[in-house]
Every structure is written in C-alpha cells, then in structure tokens.
C-alpha cells in the first residue's frame, strides 16, 4: 500500500516537474514550481527527513514561489512580460541532454554507494558532545557551523543586491509598493487572524529546533511570512533602509554567530568550534539571533527595494 503511495508521489513529482519546464507561460511555470516544492516536501516526509521537508515547504515552495510571483508582477507592471518564444525542441536539446546525463550519473552514484548506517557512527559518537539532541541542528550549528554561517551571510548579500536596484532618489522611501486594502474587508481580517497563529508556529519551530525537527531557517521563514501577510493586509507599513533597528535585526544572526565562533577560539576549542559545556546555550542564542535575521532578510527580499510609491 505504501509502495503505491510512493510510486504515485514519484510520478506526480516527475509530471509536475515536466509541466514546470515545458512551456505554457511564465505564470503557469511558477504555479507548477510551487506545487512541485510542496510535493517534494511530502516526499521528504516519506523519507523521514522532516527537517528537510519543513525547509523545502517553507523556503523552496513558499518563499521562492512568492519571490517568483512578485518578480512576475513587477515585470507585468512595467510592461516587460518575459513570455518565452514558442518552444523550439532543438534549442532545448543540449539542456535536456545535460540534465538527463546528470540524473543518470546521480542514479548510478546512488546505487554504487554502500547503504549508510543510520545514524552515522561518527555522528552517533559526537552527538552527546553537541549540546543539542536533534542531529540535524547539531550538524548545522556545531559540526558544520561554517556552512551555516556563510549561508546566513549569503542571504544578507542577496538582500544588498536587491537594494542596489533602488534608485538614488528613492533611497529614503519605504520598501516596496503601498498596499490598497479595504478596511474591514476580507484581506484586512485575514491579516488580523493569521499572524497570532503564525507567530506561535514560528517561535515554536525555532524553540524546538534543539531537540526535534525545526530550527532558525524554518521558523524564521514562517515569521517572515507572518510579517508579509500583515504588510499585504495594510496593517504594517514597510520600514525604511535607514531605520537602525531593522539594520540591527539584519546583522544580528551572522554577528552573534561570529562572536560565538571567536569565543570558541578564545576558550581554546578553535574558531567556530563550540566548547562542550556552553554548546547547548550557545546554540540556543545563535538560533534565536539567526531566526530574527532570517525572518527580517527574507521579508525584505520579498517586499523589494525602496520605491517612491509611498509618497503622497
């Protein structure tokens, strides 16, 4: 019975992936891409990788989908809809061959590799010293802290890239375009009802990350979505680049992470290596700071650079 479910899921993922890339317009491709992300996260749940499933649903399907949609809306507003020319099979052939080759190579590698022990023996011996019980969090924030630190900095760099698109005379304006919402209407009420639940879920996800699936990236994305819903409902006005509090929110995560790394070096454990006695509390503080930064960065990425639309 579960085999039928898994086969159906795989067939659906393949079909939706094909529907995403095989033409039919940009908007349709975006919608299929979001569905593809949701199906993938179901597949991750089937593989018992709940952490990855949460990240895929929140970031892969949700946030990336919203980014694509807002980019599409912006293209439509300036009258530059980038509809691809009618599909020419010959033009797609090299890309299709390359992708098929890569898929074949990955499949070969998967079958050639030995079946891994779970949990991996190295991880199993190191986990008691990590300070947290969730092995995914232990790897992300302790054993492979470098990767996570650089990821959080990459997010910041992406936001700075988006801000560079702002025009000089708009720099002191609020982010994005103003939202026109009917007071007491459907969207306004939705914006009031959803955020309390969303904040609860987001904070919970950050908090349980130490022991169970969850963490800064998943929780931060949910919190960013809450802020975006409130902004779309006209309840929050987007801030400005020049507001120092928001800038501090942006850098809090990478900064706290770096400081923790330097403290590790001073205490003799090495840069970005958390000494065992303080590892648990250090990871907790880093997670909170990272969640704040990720939430603020992702929300600002979606809202876009400062624009003059807010001026009366």
């Amino acid at each position, binding site marked *: 019975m579960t085999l039928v479910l898994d086969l159906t899921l795989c067939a659906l993922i393949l079909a939706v992936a094909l529907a995403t890339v095989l033409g039919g317009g940009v908007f349709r491709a975006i919608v299929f891409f979001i569905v593809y992300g949701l199906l993938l996260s179901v597949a991750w749940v089937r593989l018992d990788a709940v952490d990855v499933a949460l990240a895929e649903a929140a970031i892969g399907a949700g946030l990336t989908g919203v980014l694509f949609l807002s980019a599409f809306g912006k293209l439509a507003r300036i009258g530059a809809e980038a509809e691809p020319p009618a599909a020419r099979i010959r033009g797609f052939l090299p890309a299709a061959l390359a992708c098929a080759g890569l898929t074949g190579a990955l499949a070969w590698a998967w079958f050639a590799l030995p079946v891994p022990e779970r949990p991996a023996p190295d991880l199993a011996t190191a986990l008691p010293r990590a300070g947290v019980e969730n092995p995914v969090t232990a790897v992300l924030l302790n054993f492979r802290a470098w990767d996570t630190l650089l990821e959080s900095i990459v997010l910041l760099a992406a936001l700075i890239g988006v801000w560079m698109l702002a025009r000089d005379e708009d720099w002191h304006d609020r982010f994005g375009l103003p939202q026109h919402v009917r007071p007491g209407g*459907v*969207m306004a009420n*939705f914006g009031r*009802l*959803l955020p309390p*639940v969303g904040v609860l879920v987001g904070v919970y996800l950050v908090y349980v990350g130490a022991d169970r699936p969850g963490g800064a990236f998943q929780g931060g994305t949910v919190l960013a979505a809450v802020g975006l819903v409130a902004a779309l409902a006209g309840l929050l006005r987007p801030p400005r680049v020049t507001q120092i509090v928001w800038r501090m929110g942006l850098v809090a995560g990478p900064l706290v992470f770096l400081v923790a790394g330097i403290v590790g070096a001073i205490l003799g454990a090495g840069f970005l290596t958390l000494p065992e006695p303080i590892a648990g509390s250090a990871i907790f503080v880093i997670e909170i700071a990272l969640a704040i930064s990720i939430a603020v960065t992702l929300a600002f990425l979606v809202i876009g650079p400062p624009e003059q639309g807010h001026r009366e």
Partner: protein
Amino acid sequence: MNDLATYAFTSIGLFFFVAGSVGFLRFPDVFSRLHALTKADNLGLGFIALGIAFQAESWRLVALLFLIWGLMLLAAGTMSQLIARDALRERDGR
C-alpha cells in the same frame, strides 16, 4: 471500531474531494469553479481529519489536526474571495 470509523469518515472525505475535483473540471466559469473547490474540498478535508483523528494517539494530535483544518478553511475562504474579486474586476474591465 476506531478503524471502522476511520474508513467511513475518510471515504466520505474522499467522496467530497472527488466531487470538488469533478466540479472544478466541469464547471463553466471562475466563480462556480471556486465554489466547487472551496466548499467541497474543505468539507472533504474536515471528514478526512475526523477520520484520521480516530487513529491519533493523543488528544494533542487531535487538536493539531483540527487546527490544520481550521487554518485551511481560513486560507481557502480568503483566497477564493481574493481570486473572485480579481476575476470580477477583470470581467467588468476595471
């Protein structure tokens, strides 16, 4: 007994999902298609949640299932209103 209840309620839920999907494919315009999707599918999801609730090991899981159903109701209701308003504006050429 619990298994029987699960079979019964998830079957009812699936029936509503099928009905909603048929309606989505067969109905002529945006508004009636929205009606099929939101009403039938929300009811179907409620029955499926009810059916699964009989398999839950704790009351916490039951509460979570119905929280999910409530959030889906809220989201589907809001989205259908927003899509319908956009379709109305497009139809009236405003």
